[in-house]
């Protein structure tokens, strides 16, 4: 019969031997393990969703859909709602996206479009990446003791003279939306910058040559050719940056003021879902309040999953090979 043993025993001298049973066992178990952990990745995400959803479920009959439209969080009366937190999460992330996105894209242009000598470019890139390396809790501390005192006079000046504009309708008494948004935008800037850089780098060199060949100035080339060509990837970068802002916890928990209020004002205290979880969870009453928090976590998980999946899909489609975070 023709089988593996045969190859080892035929005549003629050779040192080749078929793999030993040990080799084959090692190969099989190694491959089994890698496959098992690949499956485990899928199960892990599913399990996270299942587990958090499962813990939220008991609270659902009591809280219902109106949980999402109620503005009160009162543990002594057992009334819970996260409308202000949903609003605060989206509003703060949106403001941070405008600011961080603008800076992020500008820096991506600055780094990729040959403005800088190689060494400066390298340094700038590293500085931006280190910006992302600082733990958010440190940004929180810096926000409380450096940023807030710094911007308070300016904020109160704006309120004094332009208070009729809804955005400036309150004073900045300490913690509030603005410092939180500023720190949040610093934190998403590196994400937006890195993915936009990939989008710019994915543009073939000949496209750029074609633009310059037509006699454009550098900025005309950037604005009319490079930016539109990279727009898909940049849009993906913004969506992923938004996703990151939605889920960011510590900087907001420390800076946003944690007040269940619906506000447009930049200077008023507000709250986000993540901050609510961070501040309330450790002291929550077992029972309905914990259930309500799980419900809130579930809402946050769903929002971020949707935004992140959308971002990943956009980036993957727009920049082949450039789908890093």
């Amino acid at each position, binding site marked *: 019969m023709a*089988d593996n043993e045969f190859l080892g025993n035929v005549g003629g001298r050779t*040192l080749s*031997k078929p793999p030993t049973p040990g080799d084959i066992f090692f190969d099989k178990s190694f491959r089994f393990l890698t496959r098992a952990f690949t499956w485990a990745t899928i199960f892990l995400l599913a399990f996270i969703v299942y587990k958090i959803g499962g813990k939220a479920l008991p609270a659902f009959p009591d809280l219902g859909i109106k949980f999402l439209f109620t503005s009160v969080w009162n543990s002594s009366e057992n009334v819970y709602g996260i409308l202000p937190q949903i609003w605060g999460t989206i509003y703060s992330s949106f403001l941070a996206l405008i600011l961080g996105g603008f800076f992020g894209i500008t820096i991506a242009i600055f780094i990729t479009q040959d403005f800088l000598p190689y060494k400066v470019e390298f340094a700038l890139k590293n500085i931006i990446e280190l910006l992302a390396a600082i733990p958010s809790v440190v940004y929180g501390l810096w926000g409380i003791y450096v940023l807030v005192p710094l911007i308070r006079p300016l904020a109160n000046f704006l309120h004094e003279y332009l208070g009729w504009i809804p955005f400036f309708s309150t004073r900045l008494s300490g913690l509030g939306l603005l410092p939180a948004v500023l720190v949040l935008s610093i934190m998403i800037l590196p994400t937006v910058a890195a993915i936009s850089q990939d989008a710019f780098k994915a543009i073939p060199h000949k496209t750029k040559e074609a633009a310059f060949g037509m006699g454009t100035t550098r900025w005309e080339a950037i604005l009319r050719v490079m930016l539109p060509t990279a727009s898909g990837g940049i849009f993906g970068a913004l969506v992923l940056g938004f996703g990151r802002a939605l889920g960011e916890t510590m900087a907001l928990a420390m800076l946003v003021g944690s007040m269940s209020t619906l506000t447009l004002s930049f200077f008023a205290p507000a709250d986000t879902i993540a901050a609510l979880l961070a501040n309330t969870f450790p002291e929550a009453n077992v029972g309905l309040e914990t259930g309500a928090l799980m419900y809130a976590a579930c809402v946050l998980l769903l929002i971020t999953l949707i935004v992140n999946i959308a971002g990943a899909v956009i980036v993957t489609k727009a920049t082949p090979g450039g789908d890093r975070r």
Partner: protein
Amino acid sequence: MEALKEVDANEAYENDLPADVALDCRAHQIFYSDFLAVRDSHVPIKRNQITGFIGPSGCGKSTVLKSINRMNDLIRGFRFVGDVHFHGINIYDKNIDPVSVRRNIGMVFQQPNPFSMSIFDNVAFGLRLNRYKGNMHEKVEKALRSAALWKEVKDKLKNNGLSLSGGQQQRLCIARAIATEPRVLLMDEPCSALDPIATRQIEELMVELKKQFTVAIVTHNMQQAVRVADQTAFFAVDISKGGRTGYLVEMGPTKEVFENPQEELTKEYLHGEFS
């Protein structure tokens, strides 16, 4: 019952094989996904001779060579229709382990690809893999001598294999492949990345090696085939059916193929190449 039939088939086949054929490759069809890369190529490889595969680029000569030790299994969508008979067994049989096949049929690649480890470890790699129990040093030295590299590296066996020059790296790869004394050695354009001097050294080495080994070599260089090969297989591309399918045009002793080709196509090709 089925096992019995198989034995019969193999034995019958074994009996058909001329005694001097070490390995018989019958590639009816080779696919990459839906693409038919090679058809109707029957290449017997003779023992202790060098068989050269020649032909224009894209004619499937490398594909056939890499099918012989099942390297192509690594490529997604690869499918081999036919059989490769080797010591009475078909290496494309379902119960054949490609790993065992590769241990018996060594291969040297187009680009020198030593591992990022010491010269000694590179050569000993295969020995350790095959759990060789004897004197490791002796075997490594023997392989390096056979590959005509011993004199150059004997004082720096601890250096990284990648620190050698291109020609030395390729000879190191040859030493690595022959250290385990495989039955057949396949070489896929082993000189294409090398300069003329290194090429000459490798060619001389091949002629030495055939005393011990059975060698099959793909080359894009006609003169090289003339210089080293005992047998020559000429492949061509068939574009008649829309695709680019390679096939074997003719095969025979090198002298005959070059001096008195039977096929018009071979004549044209060799003429174009030599005029």
